[in-house]
């Protein structure tokens, strides 16, 4: 590709360059900016016309000027070299090695923005992923090819939960081609170290590709990082037939970076200053999860985001929830009362659950147990707030059973150890055990034959 060099920078802002009189710049074309010092920074064309071309700089614009800074147009969109050598390596937000190793050289290069999967080419995700966590496996089942985010708040145990899922999901999948792609977006070095250590302990590190952009590093890289991570994942899944789990944390930092660029471009802001196209932009990432016809591999996404002031209606969790196939919500109240993982079962949801459960994949009674546990817990919680007003004595016998059930459900079913790996059978049996503290006649959501077969009520 011919590269053309320009020295016609007209304006520099903290994230954008305005270059004059560029001939034939391509939209989304990759550029390289060379400073007087010889330092090179990359960027991308955001908009172009005959007079001026706007470039988004991935990194800081510190040291750039209108006189000596050079801009080279690469003639192609941002492409990433891909090969199996990526596995076991750590890269930065632009795909450069940060583990001291050599860069990836490969003839095979993939566009980091990917292309939309033809909806007709998709295969319905239906393979159960056992995470060993009851509140997920039984109540919000994860399936291969799903995108299931963790909605958390600052200070909650989302990192621990994600690490536990990777560790335990890996075990059953070991015989198959299983890889982890981890994208740390604007996280602090302690969190980054936590994940790397955990992956090391569980042996997942040698089957993972890690991309890290730390809190102190350029925020513009955060917009690129998840695209690199997903490109690596797609390569492993669709070229190498692997089942890939992608963890992206923290998507809130991603959205912040998006807002920063939008503001710099003087765009009309949407809600809370986030750009109006944030839905489309996030969808461009999350929709890259899936399973397609004729290929064995799959891309499963577990993005993590921290909800600003625990507000689920904030634009970031709100838009994410509209795109993803459900969400696992962590609750501060549960966390405060010492319950790990503090999954708020009532607010959580897995939209693809039905396809992944039942006779042929988990157990025939799975749907019924899950529905009944859900209903009973919802009722118990409702009564809990009622007793705060009228006292427990005012409750009927049945209501007291529900109240007690809710307590047990939280401390025995939701709560489990960081190293506690429950099989789906254990989880479902535990569910039956807890349900049996409520009168059998209340089991409206379970088919009678399942009560016969699995119920744990004492015969009277």
């Amino acid at each position, binding site marked *: 590709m011919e590269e053309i060099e320009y020295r016609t920078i007209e304006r520099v802002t903290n994230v954008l360059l305005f270059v004059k009189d560029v*001939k034939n710049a391509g939209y989304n074309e990759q550029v390289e900016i060379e400073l007087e010092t010889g330092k090179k920074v990359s960027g991308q064309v955001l*908009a172009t016309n005959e007079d001026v071309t706007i470039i988004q700089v991935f990194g800081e614009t510190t040291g750039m000027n209108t006189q000596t800074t050079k801009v080279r147009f690469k003639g192609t969109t941002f492409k990433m070299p891909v090969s199996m050598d990526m596995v076991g390596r750590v890269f930065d937000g632009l795909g450069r090695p940060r583990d001291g190793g050599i860069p990836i050289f490969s003839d095979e290069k993939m566009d980091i923005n990917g292309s939309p999967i033809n*909806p007709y080419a998709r295969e319905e995700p239906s393979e159960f992923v056992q995470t060993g966590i009851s509140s997920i496996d039984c109540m919000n089942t994860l399936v291969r090819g799903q995108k299931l985010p963790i909605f958390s708040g600052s200070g909650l145990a989302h990192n621990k939960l994600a690490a536990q899922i990777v560790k335990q999901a890996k075990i059953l999948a070991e015989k198959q081609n299983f890889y982890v792609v981890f994208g740390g977006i604007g996280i602090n070095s302690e969190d980054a170290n936590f994940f790397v250590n955990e992956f090391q302990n569980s042996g997942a590190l040698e089957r993972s590709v890690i991309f890290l952009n730390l809190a102190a590093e350029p925020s513009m890289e955060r917009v690129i990082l998840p695209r690199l991570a997903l490109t690596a994942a797609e390569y492993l899944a669709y070229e190498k037939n692997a089942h890939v789990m992608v963890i992206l944390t923290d998507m809130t930092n991603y959205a912040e970076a998006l807002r920063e660029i939008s503001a710099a471009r003087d765009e009309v802001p*949407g809600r809370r200053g986030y750009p*109006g196209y944030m839905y489309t932009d996030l969808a461009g990432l999350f929709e890259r999860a899936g399973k397609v016809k004729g290929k064995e591999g799959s891309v499963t996404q577990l993005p993590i985001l921290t909800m600003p002031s625990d507000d689920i209606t*904030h634009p970031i969790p709100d838009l994410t929830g509209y795109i993803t196939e459900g969400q696992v919500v962590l609750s501060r109240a549960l966390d405060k009362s010492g319950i790990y993982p503090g999954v708020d079962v*009532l607010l959580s949801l897995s939209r693809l659950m039905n396809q992944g459960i039942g006779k042929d994949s988990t157990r025939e009674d799975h749907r019924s147990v899950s529905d009944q546990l859900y209903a009973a817990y*919802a009722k118990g919680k409702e009564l809990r707030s009622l007793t705060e007003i009228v006292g427990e004595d005012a409750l009927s016998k049945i209501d007291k059973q529900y109240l007690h059930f809710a307590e047990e459900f939280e401390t025995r079913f939701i709560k489990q150890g960081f190293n506690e790996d429950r099989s789906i059978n254990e989880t479902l049996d535990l569910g039956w055990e807890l349900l049996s503290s409520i009168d059998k006649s209340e089991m*409206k959501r379970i088919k009678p034959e399942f009560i016969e077969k699995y119920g744990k009520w004492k015969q009277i």
Partner: protein
Amino acid sequence: MEGKIIGISGSVVTVSGLEDPMMNNIVFIGEKELVGEIVKIEGRNAIIQVYEDTSGLKVGEKAVDSKEPLSVELGPGLIGSIFDGIQRPLDKILSKEGTFISSGIKINSLDREKKWHFKPKAEEGKAVEPGEEIGEVKETSLIKHKVIVPINKKGIIKKIAEEGDYTVEDTIAVLEDDKKTEEIKLMTKWPVRTARPVKEKLSPTVPLLTGQRAIDTMFPVAMGGTAAVPGPFGSGKTVIQHQLAKWSDADVIVYVGCGERGNEMTEILTTFPELKDPKSGKPLMDRTILIANTSNMPVAAREASIYTGITLAEYYRDMGYSVAVMADSTSRWAEALRELSGRLEEMPGEEGYPAYLGRRVGEFYERAGRARILSGKIGAATIIGAVSPPGGDISEPVSQNTLRVTRVFWALDASLANARHFPSINWLNSYSLYTDELDQWYRKNIAEDWPELRDKSMATLQKEAEINEIVQLVGYDALPESDKLILDVARMLREDYLQQNAFDEIDTYASVSKQYRMLKIINQVFDAEKAALERNVPIEKIQSVQVKPKIARLRYTKEEEIDAKIKEIEKDIEEIKKTNVEK
């Protein structure tokens, strides 16, 4: 004359040098010939919204005006297909291009090779008007495709093809009008942004039956009506849309997945061919057209997708069919509009949406309706639009503009969804402005007392809400017995009637007659218990008759067994009537 690209900003491209560019004409952009539409003209420059990914497009590349507005191809072969937002067939794209959709793909919407069996229905020498039926093609096991005279043509039939097999491009008739001859083919074209004409719009009198109790009983939508389904994420909008697409008694379903999840479209694609239409026993795919422009597909095509959908619907309406359009979600369409408006640097209205949002929403829903079509027959197009308000707060512009023009409002409620009460249609906030018009139909076709039963049940639910407020203050035990009874009955209505399990083989669909029987028996139990209470029988004693578990099972009872079960419950009601104070 060829134009030249002079500016690119996302999906908006500026072109100069086109000869006499016209608004809304299609322009092929760049070497790859991406499809775009002229949305603004400034002097000699045309601003074009491009329906495909513009990455890599360069200033200086060519642009060619097609001199035609954005149109869809109409003809046999639409049913059972899956298209993207600008009617490109996704199945053919897969076999041609592989898993991913790239830019610049050119594939005809309708198959040019396939032959259809045409039967003429008019004789040579007959004078025909636009919209008149001149032949028929069996398109699928469920749909007879009426071949109608295109809307801009009329005259005397000079020639009509004999019964036989023809492609969509073969001439099947020749008309002569004022010495001019016009060839008619199985395929025609129509610009998507223009509503197809009808003779007159009629008022809706027949319900679109959906098999969903909360809808058919409480908040029915009329055939040819409009309904809005707003709800936060996870409240079950898509499941409701899927349920209506599966079970509603329209002849043709057009399902528009507008900016939503890819896997949801896959779900339809995998389940519909296996599901059977309850009336005919034929596969549901044989009456369904899918339009999929998922959230990661180009945003401009998302904007076009709902127009493509409604145009296809109007086309089948013009054959005299009842068509239902599910648009999921119109919020994504509005957001596409906002994004494009932003790129055009238009002055924003509320929340960044363009000032013309309300007008566009109104225009779209106005294309619904029950109508006397050009041939004099009656056809209908119903629109059911999902709305995804940010944070579930319907005070935002898309919800508000939609509610202004739609006549049914199914308010999906996050707290009901969180309690797994599905469909999570809130019975206190929702409404249907068609109930009065449809009551007559229900009286005549189902039962004379249907409207009264509905109103009575609704009153019980209203009362429950009031009593619950008191319970919050004084506790359940302090309630008078009569109130306890109401709570009891309301619970039955909620759990055993309004709740409906879309994933249960039997519960997923309830015929209106099953609905009527269920509702009637619940109210009979209520009356009997109330009468007993008035005879001073203690509530514990009344409730010792185990009628509730039987009512709870009705949902899961097959249609043909429902009568037997109702008889059993009627016996229990007799028991309740016999209860007295003494023993």
